[in-house]
């Protein structure tokens, strides 16, 4: 199918882009790898698109002593190919290389993926695990929101229609932090059936385990993370995971529980290996 007609704006600065969005009727277009398919299928009605490609404030990455700020327009391939500074000990590079297919990674952007907030998409779970901050520009300036507060539910974030996601601020992972990722998909490049990102740091007593690809926002598993960080053995850890998932406010079928619990223990095992 073909998209229904829409107007198309090509702003050349962040201020221009925000002006185009000011009515609340237009939608931003980054790489278009999710939005254009939805337009082709006529699943998403839009009156106007605001193309962000020409907005210099959204491009590139800046490394700082304590981390990095990644512009919203950076493609998955830029992370995969190591074209941006890596402050996550290879985690973001690994995650980027597993997103969809190379032809999609060449166009799709980290900012676009986060703003869409498909629960099964890779970056969302990853930035929550990294406790990253999301930069959001609006009429009143830029605000920074913790990733876990940014996403409210499937395709649902704190972004207002008049605002733009500009960047992701990621803190540098300490040398003592190890990570593991477990993603299960029906085939290479498909959306995840389950996705777990585990950051384990017993030395600093800081561990985070996040489960994504749910029918809600990514789920933090603090009890599991604490057990993983404390070096709990496999059987006891599995018990902790099962109890924490069952005690969450999410509605899991028995099959979901098995799938997600397996992914959690695998990601933790990878982080510890």
């Amino acid at each position: 199918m073909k998209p229904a007609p829409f107007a198309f704006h090509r702003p050349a600065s962040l201020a221009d882009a925000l002006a185009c969005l000011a009515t609340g009727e237009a939608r931003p277009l980054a790489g278009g790898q999710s939005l254009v398919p939805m337009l082709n299928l006529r699943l998403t009605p839009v009156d106007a698109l605001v193309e962000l490609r020409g907005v210099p404030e959204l491009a590139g990455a800046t490394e700082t002593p304590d981390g990095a700020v990644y512009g919203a327009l950076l493609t998955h391939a830029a992370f995969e190919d190591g074209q941006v500074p890596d402050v996550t000990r290879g985690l973001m590079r690994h995650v980027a290389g597993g997103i969809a297919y190379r032809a999609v990674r060449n166009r799709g952007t980290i900012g676009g993926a986060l703003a869409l907030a498909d629960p099964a998409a890779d970056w969302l779970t990853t930035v929550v695990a990294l406790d990253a901050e999301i930069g959001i520009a609006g009429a009143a300036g830029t605000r920074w929101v913790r990733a876990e507060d940014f996403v409210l539910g499937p395709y649902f974030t704190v972004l207002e229609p008049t605002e733009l996601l500009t960047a992701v601020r990621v803190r540098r992972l300490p040398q003592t932090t190890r990570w593991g990722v477990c993603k299960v998909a029906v085939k290479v490049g498909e959306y995840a059936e389950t996705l777990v990102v585990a950051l384990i740091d017993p030395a600093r007593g800081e561990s985070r385990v996040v489960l994504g690809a749910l029918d809600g926002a990514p789920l933090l598993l603090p009890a599991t993370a604490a057990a993983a960080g404390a070096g709990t053995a496999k059987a006891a850890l599995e018990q902790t995971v099962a109890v924490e998932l069952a005690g969450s406010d999410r509605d899991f079928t028995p099959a979901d529980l098995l799938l997600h619990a397996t992914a959690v223990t695998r990601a933790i095992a990878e982080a510890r290996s």
Partner: protein
Amino acid sequence: MKLPISLTVNGERVEALVEPRLHLADFLREHLRLTATHLGCEHGVCGACTVLVDGAPARACILLAVAADGADIRTLEGLADDPRMAVIKESFHQKHGLQCGFCTPGMLITTLDLLARKPAPDAAEIRAGISGNLCRCTGYQGIVRSIQHAAAALEQAEEA
């Protein structure tokens, strides 16, 4: 309202006035009559419409022509004189890498990029590399063999 675009297609400058909703694949096929770029699913799943945009593979069905303004596009027609593509085409011919041929333009362009980034992939890496290109004849074994053959032939050609 139509918008002006200016881009390079297969080395030639193209200026056009297009509707914003026109995607690049339709622009290539219907406006420029470059029909090697095939349209299968039209929502970015099948990979038949894969072209090179600024040297990197992209799906032409989910790239708006207005968003390709200023880009350098290369379709399979524009790779007719590419020596590496000649080796890949010959390998697909030799190793039965196509049946109906509908997915072949996308497979060839994906292979060109895969072997540029990863010159000696094993069978699993090839399968991962072409996982975004669907062959509904399900001729994957021949396609994987073709790509392995092309990788070896390209390596040999470069050593010579």
